[in-house]
């Protein structure tokens, strides 16, 4: 005894897509608003990307026509350039470990503040500060911290009688990469902390109270309730951090310029060196590396997106 004939009509009133003009706007209006952005995008993003692809299959002679060489650069890069592989290895090590470090520290700090620490607001602002400081300043500052003679790290080791542990942290191939990674984490931990804190604060209080009734201490609450519940945010942060590490240039360039002995060479610094420092005047070869790396980043992002596709909505 229901009104089958007059149930719900197949009508969609206005959905999320808004309109100003009744029948879609005139093309001119849309173009007026979009043209500046599209122009900037075409000239300074789309065209350079295409040109890099073009470069990568040419040798660019400074005063002669470009010479088409097909896949030669790619072959050379993958088979005859050990430095390139060192750069890839270093970047991979960085991208593999540093995100865990960044997000892990950020998460622990966030939980500390969430546990009703006094002056939480002050600490939040203080810990976020390194995020805002330019890589140049951060790099120089940490070069001083790592200085063999008067840097505070060696100073501290000497003060506690660990004289034998002191070293030129950035000057030795064994420690240089780790030293730069620590600096990078120092800069970014605060960012991860703030994001984790925001995610924690958005959790419903009742769930944590329920956990308390289930006899969870702080560690239990963090491990069994908070971390699983903010997992999407953590995944997001890991991916963001990973993308950042794959692009890394500034800090390495300031602190070590890839040295010593390629110990901190990353793909970005190597591209920069080959393009602008080695005076080879060939922009084709570094372009090939850039294209190769572009696809590696793309594949990495898509693979992660795929791996977490159902459970988490990703944003960058």
């Amino acid at each position, binding site marked *: 005894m229901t009104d089958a004939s007059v149930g719900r009509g197949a009508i*969609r*009133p206005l959905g999320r897509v808004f309109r100003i003009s009744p029948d879609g706007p005139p093309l001119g209006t849309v173009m007026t608003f979009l043209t500046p952005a599209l122009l900037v995008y075409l000239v300074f993003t789309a065209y350079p990307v295409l040109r890099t692809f073009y470069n990568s299959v040419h040798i660019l002679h400074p005063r002669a026509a470009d010479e088409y060489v097909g896949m030669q650069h790619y072959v050379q890069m993958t088979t005859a350039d050990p430095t390139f592989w060192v750069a890839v290895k270093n970047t991979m090590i960085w991208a593999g470990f540093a995100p865990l470090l960044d997000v892990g520290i950020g998460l622990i700090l966030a939980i500390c503040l969430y546990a009703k620490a006094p002056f939480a607001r002050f600490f939040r602002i203080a810990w976020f500060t390194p995020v805002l400081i330019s890589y140049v300043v951060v790099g120089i500052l940490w070069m001083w911290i790592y200085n063999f003679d008067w840097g505070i790290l060696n100073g501290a080791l000497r003060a506690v009688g660990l004289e034998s542990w002191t070293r030129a942290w950035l000057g030795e191939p064994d420690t240089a990469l780790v030293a730069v990674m620590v600096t990078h984490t120092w800069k970014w931990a605060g960012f991860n902390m703030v994001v984790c804190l925001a995610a924690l604060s958005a959790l419903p209080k009742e769930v944590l109270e329920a956990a308390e009734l289930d006899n969870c201490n702080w560690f239990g609450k963090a491990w069994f309730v908070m971390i699983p519940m903010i997992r999407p945010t953590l995944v997001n942060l890991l991916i963001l951090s990973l993308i950042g590490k794959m692009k890394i240039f500034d800090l390495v360039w300031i602190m070590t310029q890839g040295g010593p002995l390629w110990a901190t060479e990353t793909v970005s610094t190597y591209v920069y060196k080959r393009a602008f420092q080695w005076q080879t005047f060939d922009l084709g070869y570094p372009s090939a590396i850039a294209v190769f790396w572009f696809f590696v980043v793309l594949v990495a992002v898509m693979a992660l997106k795929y791996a977490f596709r159902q459970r988490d909505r990703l944003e960058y």
Partner: protein
Amino acid sequence: MAVVKLNGLSKRYAATAAPAVDNADLTIEDGEFMVFLGPSGCGKSTTLRMIAGLESITGGELTIDGARMNEVPAKDRDIAMVFQSYALYPHMTVFENLAFGLRRRGFDKAEIEQRVTKAAATLGLSEYLDRKPHALSGGQRQRVALGRAIVRNPKVFLLDEPLSNLDAALRVSTRAELIRQHRQLGTTMIYVTHDQIEAMTMGTRICIMNGGRIVQVGKPLEVYENPADTFVARFLGSPGMNLVPSTVIRSGGGYAVKFGGTDLVIPMPDITDDDVILGIRPEDISEDASEGSVSFQGNVDTVEPLGADTLLLFRVAEHDAVLTARVDRSFQAFPGQSVTLHINSPGIRLFDSRTKAALMRTEPEDA
């Protein structure tokens, strides 16, 4: 002062989809308070937006005072609209919000000042003119939204669920305020709502829509008493009309429908099919016999005391459905109990079992 006429007005978003508004015919007389009532998605808001000019008309014609409006842009239709979310400009003060539409239409300063002051006074907003919307209460914002329409002195007022963001008490007082404003201004108003109480109390006529179509237009009580189909019967009234499938039989010299083992005599059998749907309003079933009432046995399912009266949910033999009766608050019963109830015969309505349309009207014979 205006007559708004919809001639086969239609709205289709895509060529393939079902129309959002299908061939609506309606004339809204000058000074009328017309309420569009229907469930969400029934096309009432789309119709209003077409009248406003915010939505293009894909079929039919809209006229105001005889002039075709289809192609006239919203700003030139001399229509004012009160939005559900009020749509106050948050970066302007109350005064600026009220004055804004006038400024845009080139009124001179003194005229604007005078109109705004007057409207603000009628709406009790005079002391808030310097405030920004965020510093106002919900009710005050609502009055600013109304004021913004009033100062324009438009031909037609459109109101899109303007009370739905107010709390219950405020809604009642604002309802009264709107009725008063309409009486004072005498302007044609078109009011969209899904709340039947607003529709019944405010409308001079109501227009009930469902699935993009106009189902029934009429004075509130007329529509309530004689719903055009089972949808209206169910939608109006809280709870709605009881509807049960039944059969028309010949009984003696006249006709009757079967109900719970009794025969309800009906005056006029304008039917092609013996199967019908029988409709009875809960208030037409009572625990006391009255003149001409027919009694039957019901089996109590639930008793819901509402305070003023009591809802009795019960079952009758031969029917699957749970029916509702509105009985006196002193009535006592317990679940499972068998009770004798009485149907007030003039309240009986019949609907076609196939088309769901109303079949006949049992006018009270001796009234």
